[in-house]
């Protein structure tokens, strides 16, 4: 991306919100918009890093009986569909799910389903050493998160087990749309840049092209979750059809793709 002089846009959606058919339709729409990577959140009953918007989307999916193996099956058939080329997929998944599913089984099936990496938000650097070896064996990247509260010595240890990119959390807190990004984020990104050659992607709180402008030249990419996921609530409100919601998400994604070029 940097060779093109633009940042990478990585939208986040929740798998199975409100059903897997919609997930497939949204994935195709985002792929058509040319997004650089898609994060797929695995619904979890007890998320603690996520704000209310993402939590509600998990609840919608789980109320509709979301199951991990069904997501893998759907993605597998989508990747064999010659008419659609998806960008790289990264799963955002709680370790509670991975452990219960069976780590090796989960990793192998995720890889076969077309995932190229995983973000495991409740598996911090210290606990991730053994797991990062397993992800390598399954040919998956393990993206690590760094918070503004992470001290430098911890950051050094964390980046050693990371691959793919570094997920830079913009603020101490949970996911969710915020008006402004914190001023100290720039300093944080500069110091991170000294510690790793991996691309830096910023997440939590980003929703507008102006946010992207403030990150330009400092980060390599950005992640948007809640601003997209909140649009899925329209399904349960029944005030919009699926086509309308997907079209609205497509318009938003195109706007943010334009913002990547400045």
């Amino acid at each position, binding site marked *: 991306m940097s060779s093109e002089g633009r940042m990478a846009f990585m939208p986040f959606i929740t798998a199975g919100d409100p059903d897997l058919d919609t997930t497939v339709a949204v994935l195709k729409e985002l792929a058509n918009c040319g997004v650089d990577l898609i994060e797929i959140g695995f619904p*979890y*009953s*007890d998320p603690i890093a996520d704000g209310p918007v993402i939590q509600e989307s998990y609840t919608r999916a789980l109320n509709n009986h979301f199951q991990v193996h069904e997501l893998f099956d759907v993605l597998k058939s989508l990747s064999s569909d010659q008419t659609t080329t998806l960008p790289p997929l990264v799963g955002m998944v709680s370790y*509670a799910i991975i*452990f*219960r599913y069976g780590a090796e089984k989960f990793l192998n099936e995720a890889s076969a389903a077309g995932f190229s990496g995983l973000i495991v938000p409740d598996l911090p650097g210290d606990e991730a050493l053994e797991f990062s070896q397993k992800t390598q064996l399954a040919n998956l990247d393990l993206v690590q998160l760094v*918070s503004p*509260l992470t001290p430098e010595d911890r950051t050094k240890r964390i980046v050693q087990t990371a691959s793919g990119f570094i997920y830079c959390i913009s603020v101490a807190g949970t996911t969710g749309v915020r008006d402004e990004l914190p001023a100290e984020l720039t300093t944080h990104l500069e110091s991170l840049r000294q510690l790793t050659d991996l691309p830096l992607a910023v997440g939590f709180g980003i929703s507008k092209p102006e946010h992207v402008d403030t990150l330009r030249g400092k980060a390599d990419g950005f992640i948007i979750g809640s601003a997209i996921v909140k649009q899925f609530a329209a399904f349960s409100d029944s005030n919009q059809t699926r086509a309308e919601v997907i079209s609205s998400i497509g318009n938003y994604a195109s706007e943010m793709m334009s913002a990547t070029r400045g």
Partner: protein
Amino acid sequence: MTTILSDVPDASGRFGEFGRRFVPETLMHALEELTQEYEKAKQDESFQSELNDLLKHYVGRPNPLYFAERLTKHCGGGKIYFKREDLNHTGAHKINNTIGQALLTMRMGKKRVIAETGAGQHGVASAVACARFGLECIVYMGEEDIRRQKLNVFNMKMMGAEVRAVTSGSKTLRDAVNDAMRDWMSSVESTHYIIGSVIGPHPFPMMVRDFQSVIGKETRAQCLEQTGKLPDQVIACVGGGSNSAGMFYPFIDDESVKLIGVEAGGRGPEPGEHASTLSYGAKGVLHGSFGYVLQDSDGQTQDVHSISAGLDYPGVGPEHSYWKDSGRVNYTAITDNEALEGFQTMAKQEGIIPAIESSHAIAHAMKVAREAHPDETIVVCLSGRGDKDVNEVARLLGQEI
């Protein structure tokens, strides 16, 4: 039974394979700081002496070990004793922990405290400790528990705490923990989270156990003094597991003492009908630590049910998971109806109205006592008094107050 040592957890918070820290990176630094501060406080004589002074003059410790003569006769068999945590200030064991953690909050220079509560006893104990030290206190509580525990909600507010209703999920304890953790994520630099049980990421399970161990230490000494020997059996109820961890831990290396944890058997063994994590759960991750969890095959936490708002939690402390797998502690379940019967029998035979949580332990002790020799001593942790539960019990018995 595998050999078990009381010298757990290790530096990374492992009780065997259980425990550790499964939390977002944002919380890691605070947990490391808390661990260091707690280790320093443990070695600090002035901290220990201030804590002991408060436990004595404010909480009212040591509380009695009481021989329940009439209940013993009623059951026939072993002698039943109660460790009277119900006589503590606020009427439950929870204050042993909140006073300790409030002192730590002061040491860390933080002014704001958050807590989660199910039955409300931990919320009240947190509000009390915060009022005592002038700390701001926010208590997260599920909407369903607010309905069940109006008295405690009123008490918390009286003492200046803000009670925040949690409307997500099952609107009970587990959802309150989720919301408290979220608050902590965004306020960790100024706020201490007083977790109310031996759950959560390291160092909480160890720290809460240590603060609650005063129960078992006193019981051990009182038993030796009053009966001339260690108890034969020690029984305590288990939700998250704090009164039982505090009761059992000082007896862990005494292999002659049989330890029994009693979970909420609810309406029966079907998923969603009980809260018996150790009896029916599987290994997994919940609320920052690895232990037994009631979950489905995808790792989604299952809904739970108990007559007791204090026990309906789908996880359990990692040290209990360790004790279960080692065989050192036996875990069993008591149904809602059995607990109600224990509640009523205790009130009529001993003139003590127990918490519904404790009534689970009482109901099991009555079963055990019937099978025991009259020379055997059975000690039950009476973890709290039942004032908070009388409205709910009356409703279940079809009576009006």
